């Protein structure tokens, strides 16, 4: 192996590893995005049909569905392709654990205060801040743009109340998580195919 080949090998290996990291980063965003969209729709349907306030407990399905699906996907991937943790991935993961924890506290506060709490505003704002900060850390523009859009959109929840706010939060989750998640996944796949 000569010097030129060594440098090419280093570049190729680092590049391949980074592409894998990008692809992995899209999965939690897509999983949590869909979990949030499906849960919001379920809550909207249940509240519209029954008008029973207790169906708000369904919001708890977001972290439960999200973490369960993510760990299942992670376990399958680890079995076939092995385990790898990037510095940035661990940092982003810790930020999302913090955000999820605060979201759960907000849900509990809503029940304790019997709805006298701007939960949709705070939830949308927290999720948008999470997406935006993830984007800023990995310098991925769609996450930054959709995150900022989500931050601005979250303030609408201060005026939109009732069932309409549930539909709006469903749309917000789709805009800030599902769409940029798919964009990153598609871009990472395209890069890998071009490389192959």
């Amino acid at each position, binding site marked *: *192996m000569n*010097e*030129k080949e*060594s*440098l090419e*090998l*280093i570049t190729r*290996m*680092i590049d*391949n*590893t*980074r592409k*894998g*990291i990008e692809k992995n980063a899209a999965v939690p965003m897509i999983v949590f995005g869909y979990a949030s969209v499906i849960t919001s729709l379920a809550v909207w349907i249940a509240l519209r049909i029954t008008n029973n306030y207790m169906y708000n407990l369904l919001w708890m399905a977001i972290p439960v569905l999200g973490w369960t699906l993510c760990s299942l996907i992670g376990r399958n991937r*680890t079995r076939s*392709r*092995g*385990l*790898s*943790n*990037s*510095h940035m*991935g*661990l940092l982003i993961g810790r930020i999302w654990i913090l955000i999820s924890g605060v979201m759960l506290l907000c849900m509990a506060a809503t029940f304790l205060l019997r709805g006298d709490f701007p939960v949709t505003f705070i939830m949308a704002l927290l999720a948008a801040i999470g997406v935006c900060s993830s984007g800023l850390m990995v310098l991925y523009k769609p996450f930054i743009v959709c995150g900022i859009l989500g931050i601005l959109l979250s303030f609408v929840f201060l005026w939109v109340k009732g069932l309409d706010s549930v539909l709006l939060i469903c749309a917000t989750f789709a805009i800030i998580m599902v769409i940029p998640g798919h964009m990153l996944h598609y871009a990472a796949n395209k890069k890998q195919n071009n490389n192959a």
Partner: protein
Amino acid sequence: MLNQLDPLLHSELRLAVMSVLIALEEADFVYLQEKTGATSGNLSIQLDKLQNAGYIDIEKTYKGKKPRTVCRITSKGLEAFRAYVDAIKGYLEV
């Protein structure tokens, strides 16, 4: 004067392993094997050489009943890798 290339890193598989680990916090044996395309035996030998030189840390754990070997680059390994890249750049005049 050109720096001499570190013979421990100037091997295709060991350099590939170090290049993967440089971009990560940690990686397990299966991941390194998938990325480098090496056989288990060869990878195992090269990982031992890197560990003996103090370039990587190897942690052997269990996940459930399955053994897992997790590798991390050390600060000594990071320094050696940097010196190796600088030396190559010197040779290639880039």
